[in-house]
C-alpha cells in the first residue's frame, strides 16, 4: 500500500518527537548560545525585514541612538548627544570621539552620513526608510568629522526611535556584519545550522570599572525550529535563554527550575477575531448585514469568556484583552476605556433587540437565516486552535453555530488579503513598538491591512472616518498630551464598535539561565538581549 510505511514513520516521529538537528555544540567560556527559528534572510543591516535579521542587527550594528527597552527612552550610543530643531525638521548628531569599527578603522561623520544616505536611497529598499515618511526628500550633511545633520521635509513624530534601527557601517564598504560598530561581528555562518558572532574588540563602551564591553567573548545562534528540542537543550544548559517561550513549556520549566522561567505579564501583542465587513466579499447579503451590525459584534464580544481563554489556551499565561492596547503599554493604554463586558444574557438581549430570535437551540436572523459562520485561523498554532474551539462553545450558548477551519498561512493570507473569502478570522498581532504610529496601516481605512474592510476608497462608516482623522491627528501633533488624547479616542471608538474583538494579550514568557548576570528583561522586542553588552556569566571576569 502507498500509505503504509511512510505514514507510520511520520506518525512515530510525531509520537516520539524525533528531531533531525545537530544543534547544541559545546560553547566556549564567555560565550552564550540560543536558538533562532530560521535562517536570517539578510545580514545587510539596511535590508532587515524580519525578526531574526533584526536580532542580528541588534547584536552587531552600532547605532546613533539606542532605545532603552525598560524606560522606552532614547539613549545616546555612537552619538554622544543629539538635538532636534524646534520645527522638528532638523536633527543634528554629535559623535563620540575616538570611535572605531571592529577592523580598527576610524568611524567618522562620513561613515554615518554614508550609512544614512544608503538607507534613504530607494535602490537599497530599506524598510526602515518609510518611517521617515518622505525618504527621497531627506538630506544628510556632515559639516565636520564629528557632526551629522539630517534635514527632513516635515516633522516626524518620535524620530529618535528610527535611528535605533539604522546601523552605521564603514563608508563604501558594506560588509554584511563582518565589520561593525556594534558589540559583536559576524564570524561564521553555516546555512541551516548556526550563526557565530565574535566580540568586537574596538567597541566603544566600558563599564564603571573601565573594563571594555561587551563582557561576552561570543554568541552562537543555532538555527532550530523545534521548541521541544530548544527547551530540552536549555534544560541541559546548552542554551542560555529562550525568548517567547510557549506557555505549555513554561509550567514544565518552572516546575524543574523556578528561577529560570520568567513571566513578565501582558505583552504588547494581542489575539483578536474579526468579521469580514468588506462590501465586495463573496458572502450572502444577509451574512454581510450581520457582520456590519454593531449589535451583532458586541453580542459576540460579550459571549466570549476571555478569562477561560487565558486560563485554558495559555495555561494562565495571558491577560484577558478588551481593548486594542495592552496594559503593558503604559504610555498609550487608555485607562478609562469603557468596554462591553462578558454577559451572555445581555448578549442574547442585544441580539433580540437587533431582530435575531431563537429557533430551538439555534439563532436565526429576521429573514429566518440560521446564524452559522466559520472562523479561520492558521494551522500549527496550538493556543489559537484552542481559542477557536473555546469560542465555538461560547457562541453556541447564544445559538451561533461556528465551524473552526485551520488553513496553512499562504492559503489564509490569500483569503484575507486577496479574495476576502472568509467570514470571521482569528489571528494575533505582534506589536513591536508601543507607539501608535506603527499601527497606522491597521487603522487607516484606506490601508490594505485594514483587515475588516481593506483599502476603502472613502471611509465606509462615520466611525471609520473619525478613526482616520484621529490617527492622522496623533501622527502630526507635536505635543505628546494631544497625541495621547487622540489615540485614547481611537481606542474608545474601537471598543464601542468592536471591528476587532480583542481576546487576550499573551504574556511575555522567557527562559533565562540563572547563571547569567546583568540581564534586564523587558516586554519590548529584544527583551532579553537589549543590554547584551552588560550581560556576563556569573563568575566570568
Amino acid at each position, binding site marked *: 500500500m502507498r500509505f503504509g510505511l511512510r505514514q507510520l514513520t511520520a506518525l512515530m516521529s510525531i509520537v516520539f*518527537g524525533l528531531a533531525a538537528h545537530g544543534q547544541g555544540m559545546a560553547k566556549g567560556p564567555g560565550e552564550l548560545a540560543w536558538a533562532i527559528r530560521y535562517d536570517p534572510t539578510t545580514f545587510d543591516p539596511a535590508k532587515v525585514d524580519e525578526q531574526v535579521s533584526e536580532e542580528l542587527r541588534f547584536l552587531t550594528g552600532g547605532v546613533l541612538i539606542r532605545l532603552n527597552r525598560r524606560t522606552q527612552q532614547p539613549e545616546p550610543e555612537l552619538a554622544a548627544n543629539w538635538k532636534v530643531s524646534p520645527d522638528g525638521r532638523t536633527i543634528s548628531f554629535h559623535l563620540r570621539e575616538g570611535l572605531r569599527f571592529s577592523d580598527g578603522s576610524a568611524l567618522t561623520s562620513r561613515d554615518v552620513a554614508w550609512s544614512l544616505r544608503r538607507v534613504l536611497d530607494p535602490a537599497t529598499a530599506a524598510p526602515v526608510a518609510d518611517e521617515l515618511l518622505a525618504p527621497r526628500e531627506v538630506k544628510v550633511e556632515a559639516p565636520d568629522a564629528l557632526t551629522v545633520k539630517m534635514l527632513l521635509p516635515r516633522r516626524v513624530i518620535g524620530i529618535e526611535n528610527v535611528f535605533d534601527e539604522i546601523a552605521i557601517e564603514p563608508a563604501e564598504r558594506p560588509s554584511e556584519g563582518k565589520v561593525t560598530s556594534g558589540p559583536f561581528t559576524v564570524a561564521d555562518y553555516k546555512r541551516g545550522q548556526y550563526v557565530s558572532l565574535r566580540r568586537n574588540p574596538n567597541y566603544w563602551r566600558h563599564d564603571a570599572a573601565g573594563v571594555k564591553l561587551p563582557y561576552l567573548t561570543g554568541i552562537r545562534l543555532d538555527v532550530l525550529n523545534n*521548541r521541544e528540542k530548544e527547551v530540552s537543550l536549555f534544560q541541559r544548559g546548552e542554551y542560555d535563554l529562550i525568548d517567547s517561550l510557549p506557555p505549555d513549556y513554561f*509550567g514544565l520549566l518552572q516546575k524543574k527550575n523556578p528561577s529560570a522561567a520568567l513571566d513578565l505579564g501582558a505583552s504588547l501583542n494581542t489575539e483578536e477575531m474579526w468579521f469580514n465587513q468588506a462590501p465586495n466579499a463573496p458572502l450572502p447579503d444577509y451574512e454581510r448585514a450581520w457582520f456590519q451590525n454593531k449589535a451583532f459584534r458586541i453580542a459576540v464580544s460579550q459571549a466570549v469568556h476571555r478569562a477561560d481563554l487565558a486560563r485554558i489556551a495559555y495555561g494562565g499565561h495571558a491577560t484577558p484583552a478588551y481593548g486594542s492596547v495592552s496594559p503593558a503599554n503604559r504610555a498609550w493604554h487608555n485607562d478609562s476605556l469603557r468596554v462591553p463586558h462578558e454577559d451572555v444574557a445581555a448578549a442574547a438581549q442585544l441580539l433580540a433587540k437587533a431582530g435575531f430570535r431563537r429557533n430551538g437551540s439555534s439563532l436565526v436572523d429576521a429573514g429566518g437565516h440560521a446564524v*452559522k459562520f466559520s472562523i479561520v485561523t492558521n494551522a500549527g498554532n496550538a493556543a489559537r486552535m484552542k481559542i477557536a474551539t473555546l469560542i465555538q*462553545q461560547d457562541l453556541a450558548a447564544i445559538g451561533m453555530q461556528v*465551524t*473552526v477551519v485551520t488553513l496553512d498561512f499562504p492559503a489564509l493570507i490569500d483569503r484575507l488579503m486577496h479574495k476576502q473569502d472568509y467570514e470571521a478570522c482569528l489571528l494575533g498581532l505582534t506589536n513591536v513598538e508601543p507607539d501608535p504610529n506603527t499601527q497606522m496601516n491597521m487603522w487607516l481605512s484606506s490601508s490594505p491591512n485594514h483587515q475588516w474592510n481593506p483599502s476603502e476608497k472613502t471611509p465606509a462608516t462615520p466611525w471609520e472616518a473619525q478613526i482616520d482623522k484621529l490617527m492622522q491627528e496623533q501622527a502630526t501633533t507635536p505635543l505628546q498630551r494631544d497625541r495621547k488624547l487622540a489615540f485614547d479616542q481611537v481606542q474608545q471608538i474601537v471598543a464601542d464598535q468592536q471591528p476587532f474583538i480583542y481576546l487576550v494579550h499573551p504574556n511575555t514568557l522567557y527562559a533565562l539561565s540563572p547563571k547569567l548576570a546583568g540581564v534586564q528583561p523587558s516586554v519590548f522586542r529584544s527583551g532579553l538581549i537589549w543590554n547584551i553588552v552588560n550581560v556576563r556569566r556569573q563568575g566570568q571576569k
Partner: protein
Amino acid sequence: MRRRIALWVLALMIVAACVIVMLPGASYYAQDREAIMSGANSHHWAGTDALGRDRGVRVAAAILLGLGGAAVAAAITTAIAAGVGALAAFSAPAVASILMLASDLFLSLPWLFLLMMVRSFLPLTTSPLHSAVVTFTILAALGWPACARAVYRGTLHLRSSEWMIQGRASGLRNTQLVRRHMLPHLLPLLIPQFLICVPAFIVAEANLGTLGLGIAEPLPSWGAMLLELDNSASLATSHWIYLPVVVLVLVLLLLESLTVEV
C-alpha cells in the same frame, strides 16, 4: 485462531465504544472548563484533554469514526480497483496500457500536497461531519491504483484459465463472465486488499489530522488527539494522555492480524 481472537477483540472494542458514546451525559465536545487535563476521576474515567473534554468518550468516538470511515473508504477503493483492474484485463492491450498508465500516474501524485490543496478549496462552512466524509472520500479516491495493478494481474491470470475459456466457448458475454466467474475467484484477492486498506487509511487520516487537514474540530480524530503527545510539557500531566496512541496501536495491530490470516 489468531484471526478469530483479533476479530472478537475488535468487535468487543466496537461494542464498548458504542456503549461509551451512547451513555447518558457522554459528549465528545462538551468542555468541562474546570477540569482541564485532569486525570481519571468520577466524572471522566479517562480524564480530560486540554479543553476539558472527556478523553474516554473522544477515544471511543474516534474508534467508531476512524474505523467506520476507513472501512467505507477501503470498500470504495477496493471497488474502484476491482473495476479498473477487471476493465483493463478484459480490454484491448492498448486500453489496458492506458489504464495502467493512469494508475501509475495516480501512484506518483504528491498526494499530501493534493490533499492540502483540496482541503483549502473546500467551503469554509463545511461542517465537521462533512469534513470527515471529504477526508475519507479523498483517501478512497487516491488509494486504489496499487490495488488495481494487483487486480489486473490476478484477472489476467484468471482470464486464461480453463474454466474461463470454457465459459467464453459457451457464449457467455464479458459482463456475465465477470459476474459469475471472475468476481467469486477474485474475492480472495480483494478481501486482503480491503483489509490492508483499512489500517492504512486510519494511519493516513491520523497523519492528516496532525497537520490540521483532516477531520474538523470538535469531532475527535486520531491525528488531533496524537498532537497532544507532541509536547513534553503535557506528557507530564497525566498517564491517560497516552490512551489515544495505545488504542490506535491496538486497533492497527488487530486489523493487521486480520489481514495476515486471510
